[in-house]
């Protein structure tokens, strides 16, 4: 802002007016120069700049509007205020359109002079605001320009990255091609010689040819490893995950490496517990990891020795280990072991150990791509154990993933998408009569039957729970198509005679379907709809009360149980639970132990004291280590526990078990 008196140029031909105006303004912090003609004022304008111009519209020589125009040309942004006589408002308004800041109408008694300083100051303030706004605008433009520049740079960089990525891909492809082609020629001519096609071969020559062939094969494997590593680093490995059964896979790996091991007098052993769950993984990649680890173990074990492959179940994953009785690894070598191009320390007389040194690095990355870990323990001279973990196969998660991705795909392609749920209604009886193992076999066989029936459509089959329910996920099938397929499946299954042991078993099947977009739009709706349509007489009308202070757990349990056709009530605290139980009887209570206000023990005691609630079975949901049976004063026959974290399937099985016990005791 202007400091000191504000310079004003006044265009006024009336001396009296001019003097009074000058006096009034100079008393109020302005200095005023007066010019009596337009010409005089404009001359001054060239020499001196003023903050403010007061212009009388009626000057003898030049029209006020013209003066305004010239001031705006010579001193752009000047604050011009029109001073005009009564009746000239129209001209004043015109002047405003031309850029005047304001106008003031002369009053006969000079009253307008008191208002003038205010009008001027307002004008100055407006100019200041305008200047600030313009400054801001300029800065914004500048920023927008910079942003645009950055964007352009990013676009260029992105395109460059894409180009480099493609180049890398092409390079990998090219190198692979160029290296493998000559190998193919060498290998073929070597085998032509070895197969006596080009004439007789002496035993010595035969041996040399075998050596050449073995080395060609080794070179081929090194190229494969280098390519694998390059692919992993270029992010070009895409896992095709699915259900992988551990036993056949590990057996196959050991079988393929047995000749190598037997040649060194190393025995191969497999130790797998019964009922080991499957893993959710890319079978080829798991195979590759195991071949690498077992191959290494054999390589670094001198006969007589032993390599043992085993697997154990952990909470969310399966832990595999490959243990050998070999030379072991020096502690200082362990940290570098999973790095690229690392060779284990050369041991004199060891004939193996020649490769690109990539096997472990590749294995590590493949394990990590699955969300698992890899590590080892080793005692030099006594052997090494390499371990890795892979996520367990969770039927529910995979099922949801299948439905979700399938539906997304369908939405994207504007196609229909159907779920067909088939359920063996007498599965529980079959399970009771023939045992779980036999019943599972039946389920597997039924899956094969369904797979055959689905073959023509694009679809997948997921077996859920252990209750004989199978869900068929179908893309591109509309409502009518889904109903027809469901019907066909039901007939196929019922007409089929399954054999368990020596007996023939007939199954009763219900099949329902739900279709996007006809009946549901989200995957959750699809699942719920198709399941709700399945009759499930044995669990209907059963009410369960969930008592847990954690809203997420309440929500999760409620959804999971409702999906199973239970009626579910939820209480956030002990008092809340007791209140709800007064109003409505329930068949089962799921009770969290650790809750504020009133903990699970107290709730339990209160339930057991009241004759109305005494007989309601309770499942206590507790974290590990929270169990304090004695505090509850309970014996084994009356309480039921489930320990957090639990598998949903385990909880549901427990719920069913407790409900069945209750039904039986009535």
């Amino acid at each position, binding site marked *: 802002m202007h400091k000191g008196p504000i310079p004003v140029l006044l265009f006024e031909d009336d001396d009296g007016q001019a003097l009074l105006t000058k006096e009034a303004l100079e008393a109020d912090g302005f200095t005023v120069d007066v010019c009596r003609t337009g010409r005089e004022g404009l001359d001054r304008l060239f020499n001196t700049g003023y903050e403010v111009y007061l212009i009388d519209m009626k000057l003898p020589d030049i029209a006020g509007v013209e003066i305004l125009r010239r001031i705006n040309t010579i001193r752009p942004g000047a604050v011009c205020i029109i001073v005009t006589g009564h009746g000239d408002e129209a001209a004043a308004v015109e002047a405003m359109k031309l850029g005047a800041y304001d106008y003031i109408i002369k009053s006969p008694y000079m009253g307008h002079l008191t208002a003038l300083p205010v009008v001027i100051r307002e004008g100055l303030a407006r100019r200041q605001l305008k200047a600030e706004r313009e400054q801001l605008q300029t800065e914004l433009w500048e920023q927008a320009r910079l942003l645009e520049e950055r964007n352009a740079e990013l676009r260029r960089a992105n395109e460059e990255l894409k180009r480099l990525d493609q180049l890398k*891909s092409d390079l990998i492809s090219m190198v692979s*091609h*160029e290296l*493998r*082609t000559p*190998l193919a020629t060498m290998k073929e001519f070597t*085998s032509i010689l070895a197969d006596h096609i*080009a004439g007789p071969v002496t035993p010595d020559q035969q041996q040399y040819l075998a050596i050449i062939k073995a080395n*060609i094969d080794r070179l081929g494997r090194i190229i494969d490893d280098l390519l694998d590593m390059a692919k992993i680093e270029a992010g070009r490995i895409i896992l095709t995950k699915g259900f992988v059964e551990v036993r056949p896979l590990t057996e196959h790996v050991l079988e393929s490496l047995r000749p190598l091991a037997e040649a060194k007098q190393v025995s191969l052993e497999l130790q797998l517990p019964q009922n080991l769950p499957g893993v959710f993984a890319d079978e080829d990649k798991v195979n590759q990891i195991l071949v690498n680890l077992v191959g290494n173990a054999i390589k670094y074990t001198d006969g007589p020795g032993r390599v043992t492959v085993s697997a154990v179940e952990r909470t969310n994953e399966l832990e595999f280990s490959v243990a050998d009785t070999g030379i072991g690894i020096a502690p200082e070598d362990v940290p570098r072991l999973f790095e690229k191009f690392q060779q284990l320390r050369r041991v004199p007389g060891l004939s193996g150990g020649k490769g690109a040194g990539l096997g472990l690095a590749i294995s590590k990355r493949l394990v990590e791509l699955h969300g698992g870990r890899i590590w080892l323990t080793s005692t030099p001279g006594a052997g090494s154990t390499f371990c890795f973990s892979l996520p367990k196969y969770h039927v529910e998660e995979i099922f949801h993933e299948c439905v979700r991705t399938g539906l997304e795909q369908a939405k994207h392609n504007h196609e229909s998408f159907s779920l067909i749920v088939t359920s063996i209604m007498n599965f529980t009886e079959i399970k009771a009569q023939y045992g779980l193992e036999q019943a599972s076999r039946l389920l597997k066989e039924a899956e094969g039957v369904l797979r055959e029936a689905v073959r023509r459509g694009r679809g997948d089959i997921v077996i859920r729970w252990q209750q004989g329910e199978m869900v068929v996920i179908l893309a591109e099938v509309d409502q009518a198509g889904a109903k027809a397929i469901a019907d066909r499946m039901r007939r196929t299954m019922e007409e089929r005679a399954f054999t368990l042991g020596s007996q023939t078993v007939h199954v009763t099947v219900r099949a329902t379907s739900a279709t996007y977009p006809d009946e549901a739009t989200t995957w959750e709706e699809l699942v719920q709809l198709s399941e709700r349509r399945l009759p499930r007489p044995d669990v209907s009308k059963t009410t369960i009360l969930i008592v847990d202070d954690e809203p997420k757990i309440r929500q999760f349990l409620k959804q999971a149980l409702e999906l199973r056709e239970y009626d579910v009530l939820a209480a956030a605290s002990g008092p809340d639970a007791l209140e709800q139980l007064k109003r409505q009887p329930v068949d089962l209570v799921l009770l969290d132990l650790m809750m504020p206000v009133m903990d699970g023990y107290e709730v339990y005691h209160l339930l057991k004291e009241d004759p109305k609630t005494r007989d309601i079975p309770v499942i206590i949901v507790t974290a590990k280590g929270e169990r304090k049976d004695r505090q509850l004063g309970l014996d084994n026959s009356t309480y039921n526990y489930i320990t957090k974290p639990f598998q949903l399937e385990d909880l549901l099985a427990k719920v069913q078990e407790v409900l069945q016990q209750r039904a039986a005791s009535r």
Partner: protein
Amino acid sequence: MGQRVLLVEDEPELLQALSVRLTASGFACRLAANGLEALAIAQAWHPQLVIADLVMPKMDGYTLVQRLRQDPATAPIPIMVLTAVPAFARESRQELRGVHVIQKPFDSEQLLLTARQLLGQNASSGGLSHG
């Protein structure tokens, strides 16, 4: 006279090796150094099996497969592709649908086994009518 196999490979030495191997195993072979030559021979000679490389000058294996499939006279001929192109680089190629691909370097036993299988299939589906 053995079954007619057309070998297509731009590496002359590998072409020679394939020819020696297959001739020794009782097949009648014709050789082509690229897709264009192969197409001409296929139309005139009616091979019972085509074994082709992918990366070749003048006409590559992808195009060759496509052209053989388009012509009703050559469409039923089974095709085996022998290639050093890694799997990830050819996965997206539609042309190779229904074509048996063997990765180089290959085992002779595997090559012969696959060749015999493909020829057997062809015989049973009536593709020998040209003989």
